[in-house]
């Protein structure tokens, strides 16, 4: 059995979903309530592969909201993730993806040291960040979108915003080794990590986002931001492709300019319908086939019986592992969403 640990994108989103689902008691509550709300299994899911194999799983709502980070309620944020993981393990889930901020909180707050959750000792091999598959899918989205919109990568400048993160660094390594891209611009907050990444890649220009945008044919957004940022249209090159892989989205508003193409980054489309409601709530898209690549990773691990924390830690994603997960992604009927 696979599991998905997810959360909603904001308090207003949480209230909206609660109201829609008929939980009036939750729809009227403030952030303090969400800080104490327990994790819940809100959906049982079944997924069929194009190989014919069917697997079952559960969606665990952690009740974490990004405002907990914005208001520095770090203890609540960490408790949400640990409780959701303990809940997944207690319910016998073999492999669970830590969606959205879950894996970032686990890493940044060093929850590896806090694995004893009441009477449950978390078994880390039961969890995966899903970042290897997300990084693989984003790279394939870069390649497919470049082709679709007539921007040859051999002549393109690609900016990775959030380049030093787990996903961002993996995307940089793939772009460098597998795509023949002309130029890579590295954007992130931590200058030391940026320099270290550039050294390991042997290439890449370090810039601020304001400097990078006017030069970029393609921008990959994978920064961990609790709230989206505004970008001014005049900062963008035209044509350009924006691949927004954040959850919540890194771009606060959908950019609507001719020749600026926004791609829903880190999303996959399955070849067969999935009977679930959860993706409608968490991403507000039309979701019978579309889902986050990190969620799909736990499905792939379940399909293959790879009960291991396939994606774990920071900056451990190799090109070989991206190819490995990519091969089974194709095998079971997932493809990058490019629309």
């Amino acid at each position, binding site marked *: 059995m696979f599991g998905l640990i997810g959360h909603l994108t904001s308090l207003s989103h949480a209230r909206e979903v609660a109201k829609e689902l008929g*939980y009036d*008691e939750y729809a009227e509550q403030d952030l*303090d309530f969400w*800080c*104490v*709300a327990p994790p*819940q299994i809100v959906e049982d899911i079944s997924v069929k592969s194009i190989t014919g194999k069917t697997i079952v799983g559960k969606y665990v709502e952690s009740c974490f909201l990004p405002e907990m980070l914005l208001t520095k309620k770090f203890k*609540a944020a960490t408790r949400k993730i640990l409780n959701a993981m303990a809940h997944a393990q*207690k319910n016998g889930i073999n492999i669970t993806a830590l969606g959205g901020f879950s894996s970032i909180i686990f890493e940044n707050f060093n929850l590896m040291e806090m694995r004893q959750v009441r009477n449950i000792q978390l078994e880390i091999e039961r969890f995966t960040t899903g970042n290897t598959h997300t990084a693989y899918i984003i790279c394939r989205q870069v390649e497919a979108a470049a082709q679709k919109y007539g921007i040859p990568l051999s002549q393109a400048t690609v900016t990775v915003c959030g380049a030093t993160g787990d996903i961002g660094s993996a995307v940089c390594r793939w772009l460098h080794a597998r795509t023949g891209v002309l130029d890579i611009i590295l954007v992130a907050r931590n200058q030391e990590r940026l320099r270290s990444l550039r050294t390991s890649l042997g290439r890449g220009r370090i810039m601020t986002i304001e400097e990078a945008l006017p030069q970029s044919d393609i921008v990959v957004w994978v920064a961990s931001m609790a709230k989206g940022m505004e970008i001014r249209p005049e900062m963008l090159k035209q044509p350009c492709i924006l691949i927004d892989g954040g959850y919540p989205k890194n771009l606060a508003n959908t950019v609507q300019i001719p020749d600026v193409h926004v791609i829903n980054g880190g999303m996959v489309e399955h070849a067969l319908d999935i009977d679930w409601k959860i993706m409608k709530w968490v991403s507000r898209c039309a979701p019978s086939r579309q889902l986050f690549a990190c969620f799909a990773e736990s499905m792939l691990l379940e399909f293959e019986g790879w009960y291991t924390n396939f994606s774990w830690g920071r900056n451990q994603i190799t090109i070989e592992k991206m190819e490995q997960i990519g091969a089974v992604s194709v095998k079971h009927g997932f493809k990058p969403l490019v629309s």
Partner: protein
Amino acid sequence: MTNINYECPTYKDSYSRINAIVIEGEQEAHDNYISLMQLLPDQSSDLSKLAKMEEKHKKGFTACGNNLKVIPDMAFAREFFHGLHQNFQDALQEGKLVTCLLIQSIIIECFAIAAYNIYIPVADPFARKITENVVKDEYLHLNFGAIWLKENFSQAKAELEEANRQNLPLVWQMLNQVAGDAKILGMEKEDLMADFLTQYSETLAEIGFSGREIMKMAATGIA
């Protein structure tokens, strides 16, 4: 691990009420399990064992107070438990076994587990050892009630929902009443609520409630 001064008068003043609540809680639990023998005569032997464990816990927590040279404020504690105590007694008189089990075996045990787990990291070394052993037993007690209610879920469901409506708001009132004292002992109200709700929700799930039902039940009475 913590910088709490267990000897300072402010700590001891708060401890006199919290320690009394714990001692009274264990005494109530002992008495309630003995009373439950009337409604579950075929499980008298198990109930007697549970009652004995609660009595042992009471002795342990009394020793914790003595160790810090604190006199527990038992009058405060008896008043603190009055609402839940009365509801249990009323249910007992009416032969409402399901309500009695929800109050003692589920609500009180979940609250004890949450409070003890939050207390352990901030407890003085003497109390920490005792509380660590107590909390292991409390999981067994919780299990006793959960198993019976699970086996009888279809008949018990409506009464459980009603008993939840009656008694869960009392828990939030009780928690608010001691939030200040708990904070001085190093325990935040938010942590206590969160751990209680997590344990309570998990137990309701084990008994047989759906996620939707649990979400509604757990939110009862939260302002």
